[in-house]
């Protein structure tokens, strides 16, 4: 423990007025820890609302776990009963429809929050030294979320559930030599069937708690380095920061409420908007739907998969599209974190954002021309952005002048006479 940390711990311990809290804290310093990490935690004073999406994502994880637990009490993981048990939840269980629509649309809202969180990290260079591990843990969470969302989508055992499970698990058959065995291992048999549904339910139940554990590590790593900020420069003095409470908590509550209102509008007024209508038909192995489409949050990667004509390379592209995020901290050679001061990279990144949305749109289209060609161009930019543009741009980019400190622009404003 550094001297500074020791000092702050003593301080918080001294400030504990309540004798019970003090008694606990002397034996298990958890009260002081919470005090340090969630009340005093010095946060750069210039963080904007994009920094709230971490908190929003955490809340979404908790919402998913709580609603999911209750749903699991009513759900039956069996091919003959799964579909009707979901209908029972929707029709007969008290407020079952509410729990399920919150959970079902919660997955989309969770991904939405995480995607914004991810883009924010990219724009403001939150993955750069010293936050590489923090970023990597975040990508681990993202991967786990994808596995959780996929296994969860299979559970209602509708047509789209069944065929999505078939298509996605079959991807592993592209692995040379052991592919077939891997797929049979995933299925627990020779097709997507009862053993598959059963193990997917178990995994869908387990993975959120793994995510929770990694989120804990993610936050622990964050609190070692401290939060990044829109200027992407280090905290230099106490003037640069504000205590987490009440400043960031008040800001986050506002953001969470705005997000919650959007979420409520989806849940109550368009609960099936993001749902594929084919999932209202019970799974039927004998009838393949016309178009098999995954949920929207997988569509960019699905488009990459279909853009590559070779099956193995396509699968590598699909997984590589996610895995490449692990290497972003080492691919970006620029010392400047924030895109505010990177005049070229900023536009490349915005183009990347548009590219991922474009790929997402293409993923929802049938695999035919001109969509395939467009998806190929989108895929080239996707990987080109990471593998070529990101490493090389810093050679020619001339960054704008960084402010001397985080508080400098704020101080300037406080010199002016205030109108209130």
């Amino acid at each position: 423990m550094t001297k500074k940390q020791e000092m702050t711990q003593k301080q918080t311990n001294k400030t504990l007025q309540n004798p019970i809290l003090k008694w606990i804290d002397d034996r298990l310093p958890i009260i002081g820890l919470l005090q340090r990490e969630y009340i005093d935690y010095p946060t750069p004073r210039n963080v904007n609302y994009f920094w709230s999406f971490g908190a929003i994502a955490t809340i979404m994880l908790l919402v998913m776990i709580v609603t999911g637990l209750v749903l699991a009490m009513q759900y039956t993981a069996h091919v003959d009963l799964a579909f009707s048990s979901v209908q029972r939840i929707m029709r007969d269980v008290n407020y079952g429809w509410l729990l399920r629509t919150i959970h079902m649309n919660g997955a989309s809202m969770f991904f939405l929050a995480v995607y914004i969180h991810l883009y924010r990290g990219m724009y403001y260079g939150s993955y750069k030294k010293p936050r590489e591990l923090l970023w990597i843990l975040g990508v681990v969470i993202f991967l786990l979320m994808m596995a959780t969302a996929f296994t969860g989508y299979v559970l209602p055992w509708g047509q789209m559930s069944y065929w999505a499970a078939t298509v996605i698990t079959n991807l592993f058959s592209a692995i040379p030599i052991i592919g077939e065995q891997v797929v049979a291992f995933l299925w627990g048999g020779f097709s997507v069937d009862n053993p598959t549904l059963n193990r997917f339910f178990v995994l869908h139940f387990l993975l959120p708690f793994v995510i929770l554990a990694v989120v804990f590590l993610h936050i622990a790593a964050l609190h070692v380095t401290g939060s990044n900020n829109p200027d992407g420069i280090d905290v230099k003095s106490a003037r640069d920061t504000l205590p987490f409470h009440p400043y960031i908590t008040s800001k986050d509550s506002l953001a969470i409420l705005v997000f919650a209102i959007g979420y409520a509008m989806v849940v109550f007024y368009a609960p099936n908007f993001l749902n594929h209508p084919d999932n209202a038909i019970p799974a039927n192995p004998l009838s393949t739907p016309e178009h098999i489409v995954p949920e929207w949050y997988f569509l960019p990667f699905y488009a990459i998969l279909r853009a590559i004509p070779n099956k193995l390379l396509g699968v590598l592209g699909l997984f590589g599209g996610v895995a490449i995020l692990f290497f972003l901290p080492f691919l970006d050679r620029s010392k400047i974190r924030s895109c505010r001061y990177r005049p070229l990279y900023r536009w490349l990144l915005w183009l990347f954002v548009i590219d991922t949305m474009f790929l997402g749109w293409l993923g929802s289209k049938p695999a035919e021309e001109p969509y395939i060609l467009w998806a190929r161009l989108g895929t080239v930019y996707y990987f080109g952005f990471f593998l070529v543009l990101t490493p090389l741009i810093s050679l020619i980019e001339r960054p704008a002048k960084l402010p001397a400190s985080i508080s400098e622009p704020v101080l300037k404003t406080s010199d002016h006479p205030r109108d209130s």
Partner: protein
Amino acid sequence: MKKNTRVIKNALIIASCIVLLLTILPIKSNAASETSPLEKQSWPFKGILGHFDKTSLRRGYEVYTQVCAACHGMRFLHYRDLRELGYSKAQVVALAALNEVEDGPNDEGEYYSRLALPSDIFISPFPNDAAARVANNNVLPPDLSLMVAEKAAQGGADFIYALMIGYKEAPEGSELKEGLYYNTAFKGQEIAMPPPLFEDIIDFSDGTEASIQQMGFDVAQFLAWAADPSLEQRKRIGLRVIIFLGIFLIIAIMYKRRVWTRAHS
């Protein structure tokens, strides 16, 4: 001045989030429909405070039991659910008792027939899918519980209505396959279901004239209810939730501003 720009900036950030949301949300596959655009009906269950028209639902149930139920089951509905259509408890018992159900084994180990109870699911017209196929030209009449949800991309209740009134003489020159009927709403204009509705095929118990349009509208609304029975409750609660969150948001905005004025001094 500076404060104003901050407000504008925050507004811009929120606006960009909303734009992002709106860009992502419409990414949705729409099954390409090769049929003419549907005529939209003014359903009472659309809108923020939408509700079902119970008299129409009851007529729709009459259409279902007297016409559709000859071939189509609704295995996710129980007779007790008919209470939501405005029937009394006694009426539901009577409506259920119009059907017979196979039950058992009893104490002697025998299977027996009894009158259906409110706790029974809607009795299916066929004992199994194979029997249903054999009786219907080798085509399985689909279960109707979730038909409106299933056809959401084609227009949901609007599609059901269009299908009900969509039976026409096949245009000259087009050849229908055997056992198929011409319907303007159905994909490919060929449907295996024979025209189910004819003028005055049933007598509505409320005396409404049973035109094809009337029966189509009522049965479409009934199926919309069957697919989404929590709609009314959902919309009612939703409005309250959003108002609650809105008030909470105003408080949060006031609190945030108050806290942050300290940060700028």
